[in-house]
C-alpha cells in the first residue's frame, strides 16, 4: 500500500462537480423509469448513455493511471464513540473490475434491446438493471464494510427484482424468493462478521483495520470467527456449496439478466470481497475455503454434464468457475483469482448472451432441440465457440492464461494431492459439459430456412464479448502473459504442464464426440437422474429446514392462541366466575338472611294471630286462664 493518497472530504459538494454527473445518471434514470413510462427507444438509448457517462466520469474523475491508490473519506454518522464513514478506495483492482462491469453491463443493455423488445414493463426492466449497476458500482468502490454490506444487500434486491421480472410466472416468483432468502443466510454471516470486527477494532474501514493489524497479533480469535462468517457470506452470494441451490433456479429470469448478474457481476461480489479482506484470514479459514471451493467445483461440474437445459448448464458452470476463483484465493494466488474473475466475466457473459440468441430464435432452452443452431445463427455460434474455448482454457484465449496460472500454482505448491486431482477432474468435466452443448449446436438438422433476425443489438454484444475473451484483451502474445494494458502478475509456466492441461481439455471434448452416451445423458440412468436433480439437495433442505420451520410456526400459533391467550381469557373468565359467584352469594345468602328474618317475624305474627278470633267467648276464656296463671304464680 505505498503511495496511498487519502482525501478527507467534508461534504459531498466537494467531490461533486460536473464530472460526477456520470455516476448519478444511472441512479437518476432508475428513478425515472420506475415511475414513468417512456418509449422503448428513449429507455434504450438513455440506459446506454448512462453507462457510457458513468465510465467517462470514472476515467476523468479518478485519473486511475496516475494515482494508484486513492481513498475518499466522508463522514457519515456518529454513534457511541465511533464515527462511521463512507470510505471509497480506488486502485488498480477496483478500476479493472469497474471497467469489466461497465463493459458487460453495456453489452447486456444493448442485447436487452433485442431480447426484451416489445416486452411489457420494458422501462421497469432497464430501471432495475440500472439500479443493479449503481449498487454494484458502490460495492466495488466501497472500503467500509458497513457500506459494502449495504450494497451487497441492494445488489441482492436487484437480483430479486430481475429474477422475478416476469412476475406472473409462478416458477419465477418462487425462484426469486428462494434466491433472496438464501442470500439472506449469507448476509447474516456478513452481519456477524461486522459485529465481530466492530467489536474488535471499533471501526469498519478496511484500511483502518489493515493499519491496526500491522501492530497487533495475527491470531486474534475475532479474526478467526470473522473470517468464517465472511466465508459464509461468500458462499451464499457466490452460490457455492452448500448454498448454491438458488442459482440454477435464478435462471428463470431473462437471459440477459442471467448474463449480467448471475455470471459476470453479482456472483463475483463474494470473490471481490475476499480479494479485499482476505489479508486477515488465518490459514484455517483459507483451508475451509479451499474445501468449499473444490467441493463446489466438482459437484457443479458433475451436475452440469447431465443437464439438458442450456441455461442450467451455464449456471452450474458459473458455480464451478467461481469455485475455481475461490480456490485460487485459498492457495494465496490472489492476482490470478482476479484475472480469472475478469476473463470469466467476459466469456461467461458471451456464453449466456449467445445462449440467449439461440433460446430467443428457436424458442427452446433444451439443447437437444437446438441442433442446427450453428447454421441458423452463425455469428452467435462462432461467438459461442470462442467463449467455449475460453472456458476450456485453450490457447489464444485470455482465460488460457488465468486457468493455466492457477492450476500451475496449485500443483506447484502442493503437488498432486487430493485437491489438485479433483481440480484436474473438474477441468476435464468442464470441457465435457461445454462440448456437449457445442456438439448439439453443431449437429446438422434438416430445417427450413427460418428468416433470422439480423439486428445489431443482437450481434454487437456477443461479438464484443467474444473478442474480450481472446488473448488480445490482456496480453500481447497468445502464449505468454506479457504486460500489455497493465500488470496483473507474471507466471512462468512450464510448457509441458501447459500442454498437459490442453491435452486434458481436448480429451474431454473428444470424449463427448466419440462416446454417444455422454452426449445423450439419458435420464433413465440412475446416476444421471440423481445428478440431474442436483443430488436432491433442494429437497433435503426443504425437509430439514423449510418444513420444520413451518411446523414450529404453526405450533407457536396454536400455543399463542390457546395457551397464552387462553390464560389471559382464563383469568378474565375467572374474574367473571367470581363475579357471578359474588352475585349469587349476595342475592341468596346475604339477602336471604334478611329475608329469613322477615319471614320469621311473619311466622310469629301468624301464630299469634290465631288468638285474635274476634269472638267474645275466646277472649273470656283467655282472660280467665290468664288470671288463673297469675293467681297460681302469686300463690
Amino acid at each position, binding site marked *: 500500500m505505498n503511495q496511498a493518497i487519502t482525501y478527507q472530504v467534508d461534504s459531498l459538494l466537494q467531490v461533486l462537480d460536473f464530472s460526477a454527473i456520470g455516476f448519478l445518471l444511472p441512479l437518476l434514470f432508475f428513478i425515472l423509469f420506475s415511475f414513468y413510462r417512456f418509449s422503448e427507444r428513449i429507455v434504450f438509448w438513455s440506459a446506454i448513455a448512462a453507462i457510457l457517462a458513468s465510465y467517462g466520469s470514472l476515467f476523468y474523475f479518478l485519473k486511475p493511471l496516475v494515482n494508484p491508490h486513492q481513498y475518499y473519506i466522508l463522514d457519515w454518522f456518529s*454513534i*457511541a464513540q465511533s464515527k462511521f464513514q463512507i470510505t471509497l478506495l480506488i486502485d488498480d483492482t477496483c478500476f479493472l473490475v469497474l471497467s469489466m462491469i461497465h463493459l458487460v453491463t453495456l453489452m447486456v443493455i444493448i442485447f436487452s434491446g433485442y431480447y426484451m423488445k416489445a416486452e411489457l414493463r420494458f422501462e421497469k426492466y432497464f430501471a432495475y438493471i440500472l439500479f443493479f449497476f449503481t449498487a454494484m458500482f458502490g460495492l466495488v468502490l466501497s472500503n467500509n464494510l458497513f457500506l459494502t454490506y449495504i450494497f451487497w444487500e441492494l445488489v441482492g434486491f436487484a437480483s430479486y427484482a430481475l429474477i422475478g421480472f416476469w412476475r*406472473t410466472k409462478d416458477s419465477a416468483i418462487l425462484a426469486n*424468493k428462494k434466491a433472496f432468502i438464501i442470500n439472506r443466510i449469507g448476509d447474516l454471516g456478513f452481519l456477524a462478521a461486522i459485529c465481530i470486527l466492530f*467489536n474488535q477494532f471499533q471501526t469498519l474501514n478496511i484500511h483502518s483495520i489493515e493499519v491496526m493489524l500491522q501492530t497487533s497479533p495475527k491470531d486474534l480469535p475475532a479474526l478467526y470467527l470473522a473470517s468464517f462468517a465472511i466465508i459464509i457470506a461468500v458462499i451464499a452470494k457466490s452460490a457455492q456449496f452448500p448454498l448454491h441451490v438458488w442459482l440454477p433456479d435464478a435462471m428463470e429470469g431473462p437471459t440477459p439478466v442471467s448474463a449480467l448478474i448471475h455470471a459476470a457481476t453479482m456472483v463475483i461480489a463474494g470473490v471481490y470481497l475476499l480479494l479485499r479482506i482476505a489479508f486477515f484470514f488465518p490459514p484455517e479459514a483459507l483451508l475451509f475455503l479451499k474445501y468449499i471451493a473444490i467441493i463446489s467445483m466438482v459437484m457443479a461440474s458433475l451436475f452440469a454434464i447431465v443437464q439438458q437445459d442450456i441455461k442450467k448448464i451455464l449456471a452450474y458452470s458459473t458455480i464451478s468457475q467461481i469455485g475455481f476463483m475461490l480456490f485460487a484465493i485459498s492457495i494465496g494466488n490472489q492476482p490470478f483469482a482476479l484475472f480469472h474473475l475478469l476473463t470469466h466475466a467476459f466469456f461467461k457473459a458471451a456464453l449466456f448472451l449467445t445462449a440467449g440468441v439461440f433460446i430467443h430464435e428457436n424458442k427452446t432452452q433444451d439443447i437437444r432441440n437446438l441442433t442446427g443452431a450453428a447454421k441458423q445463427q452463425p455469428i452467435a455460434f462462432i461467438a459461442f465457440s470462442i467463449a467455449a474455448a475460453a472456458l476450456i482454457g485453450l490457447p489464444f484465449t485470455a482465460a488460457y492464461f488465468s486457468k493455466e496460472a492457477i492450476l500451475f500454482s496449485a500443483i506447484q505448491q502442493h503437488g498432486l494431492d487430493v485437491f489438485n486431482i479433483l481440480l484436474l477432474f473438474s477441468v476435464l468435466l468442464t470441457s465435457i459439459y461445454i462440448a456437449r452443448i457445442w456438439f448439439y449446436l453443431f449437429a446438422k438438422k434438416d430445417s427450413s430456412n427460418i428468416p433470422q433476425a439480423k439486428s445489431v443489438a443482437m450481434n454487437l454484444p456477443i461479438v464484443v464479448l467474444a473478442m474480450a475473451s481472446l488473448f488480445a484483451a490482456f496480453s500481447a502474445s497468445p502464449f505468454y502473459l506479457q504486460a500489455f494494458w497493465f500488470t496483473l502478475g507474471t507466471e512462468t509456466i512450464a510448457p509441458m504442464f501447459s500442454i498437459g492441461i490442453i491435452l486434458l481439455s481436448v480429451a474431454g471434448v473428444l470424449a463427448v464426440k466419440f462416446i454417444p452416451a455422454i452426449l445423450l445423458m439419458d435420464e433413465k440412468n440412475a446416476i444421471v437422474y440423481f445428478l440431474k436433480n442436483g443430488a436432491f439437495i433442494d429437497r433435503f433442505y426443504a425437509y430439514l429446514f423449510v418444513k420444520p420451520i*413451518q411446523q414450529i410456526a404453526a405450533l*407457536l*400459533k396454536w400455543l399463542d392462541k390457546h395457551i397464552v391467550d387462553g390464560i*389471559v381469557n382464563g383469568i378474565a373468565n375467572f374474574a367473571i366466575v367470581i363475579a357471578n359467584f359474588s352475585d349469587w352469594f349476595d342475592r341468596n345468602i346475604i339477602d336471604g338472611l334478611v329475608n329469613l328474618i322477615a319471614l320469621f317475624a311473619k311466622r310469629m305474627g301468624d301464630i299469634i294471630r290465631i288468638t285474635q278470633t274476634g269472638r267474645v267467648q275466646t277472649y273470656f276464656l283467655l282472660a280467665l286462664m290468664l288470671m288463673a296463671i297469675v293467681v297460681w304464680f302469686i300463690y
Partner: protein
Amino acid sequence: MNNWLSVLIFLPIAAALILLLLPKRASNVFRPVTIVISLLQTLIAAYLYTQYLKNPQGYHFVERADWINLNLGTFGRLNIDYFLAVDGLSIGLLLLSAFVMFIAAIASNEIKKDPKAYYTLFLLLSAAIMGVFCALDFFLFYVFYELMLLPMYFLIGMWGGPNREYASIKFFLYTLFGSIFMLLVMIGLYFSVIDPVTGEHTFNMLYMMDAANYTKDSYFSIFSTDALLFNYPVRFFGFIVLFIAFAIKIPTIPLHTWLPDAHVEAPTPVSIILAGVLLKIGGYGIIRICYGIFPEAAIYFSYWIGLIGVISILYGAFIALASTDLKRMIAYSSISHMGFVILGIASLTSEGVNGAIFQMISHGVLSTMLFYLVGVLYLRVQDREIAAFRGLAQPMPRYTLFVVIAFFASLGLPGLSGFIGEAFTLIGAFKSASVNALLPRGFAILASVGILIGAAYFLWTLQRMFFGAPRFKGAQEWHLKLKDLTATEYLVLIPLALITILLGIFPAILFDASNNTINAWVHETWIHGIANLKSMQSLLKF
C-alpha cells in the same frame, strides 16, 4: 418563547373543546381541523427538533411550575409539579408521534359514523401522547399515561371491526392492570424521595434517579433492609412492577396477546396510532423510568430482559409466518420488531440503545405504512385474508410498489430505515458480551435468525398475494373494486416512503440527536447501577 411543549400538549385539547361546541351539521369541518392541528404539531415538533440539534445534549425547553400543593396535615405536603422537558431520547419520539398523528388524521377519511366524537377523542389522544413524552414529573406522566387509555378504548370499541368490544376491553383492562401497580410504585417512590431544594417529598423523576435523594430509611432507598421474596431488595420489585407495566405496552411475550386483537379490530387510523406511537411509549418508559430510577435492578436483570427480547423476536416472527390474516401478520411482525428494541436496551451499550431508539422511530414510520397499506386493501374489498388474493401487482402496480418498499424496509434491507435499527441493536447486543458482560453472544445470533424468518414471511406474503397470475376470492366483483391508489393514499404513502429511504441513507438525522444523550445515559446507568448494587449487596445477601 419557552412554552413550546405546553403548546404541543394543549393545542389539541383546545381544538377538541372547540370541536365539541360545534354542531353536528358542521361535521365535514372536523377532519380538516384535525389535520391542520396535527400538521401544526408536526411543524412545531420539527422546529423543536432542529433547535435541539444545535446543541444536542441535556434537557431542552424546560417548563416547570408548581401545580398541586396541598397541605395534608399529618401526612405532610402533597407536591406535584408541572414539569416538562425533552432530551435526545424523547425529542425524536415526540416528532415521530406528531407526524404519525398527522398521517392518521389524513387516513381518517374512512370514518363516517359520528365524526364529532371520533375527532374529539383523537385530539385528546394526541394531547395525552405529547404529554407522556414530555413529562418529567412522575405524577404528570401517570396522568397523561392513563389519559391515553380512555380515547383508545372508545376509538377501538366504537369504530372497530366485528369483534371490537372484546378487543377494546381486553386492551383497556390489560394495560390498566399494569399501570395500577405502577401507581403503587409511584406512590412508594414519592414517599421515599426528598427534593433537595425544598426538602419535601416529590414526584420529580430526575430526583428519583439520584440515589442520594432517598431518605435513609425509606421503602425504596438503596439502604433499605426490607427484603421481599428470595431476599431480593424492594427496589428490585419496584423495577419488576414498572417493567411489567411497560412490557405490556411494548408488548413483550408473554404479555402481548392484546395486540393482535386490538390491531385486527381497530379501524386503520387507530391501528396506525396504536402501532406507530403507543408501542413506543413502552420502550420510552423502560429507558426513562425503569432504567433511570432503578439502574441496579436493570443491570441485575439484563440477562432476562435480553432473553425476553430475543424470545419476542423469534416468537413474533414465527407466528407471523403462520398467520393467515394480513393484519394479524403485521401485528406479530410489530411484536418481533419491538423485540429488537428490548434487546438493544438490555445490552446497555450506546450502540444498542441508540439502535433501539432508531428502531422505535423507524418502526413507527414503517408500521404506519404497513397498516395503512392493509387498510387500503380492506377498504376496497373488506377482506384481509392472504389466501384470498393472488397477483395483486397486476391491477394495483403502484400499490405493490409501496408494499415492496414497506416489506423490504421491515425485513431490514439496507438503504431503508429498518436496517439501521436492527443492525445497531445487533451490534450493541454483540458488543455487550465483551464490554459489560451482560448479554451472551448467543442472543445476537438468535436475533439474527429472527431477521431471517422475517425475510421468509414477508417474501412469502409478497409471492402469495402480489405476484403470480391474478386470482381473487371475489372473482369478477373484486377485479372491479381493486383500483389502484387514490390521491389521498398517495399523500399518505409518499412521505412515509421518502422518510424511510431518507433515514436509511442518512441515519445521522436521528443519531445526531440521540447520541450524546444516550452516551451519557449509558454511562450514568452503569456507574450508578454498579454502585447501588454494591451497597445493596453488602446489606442484603442475594
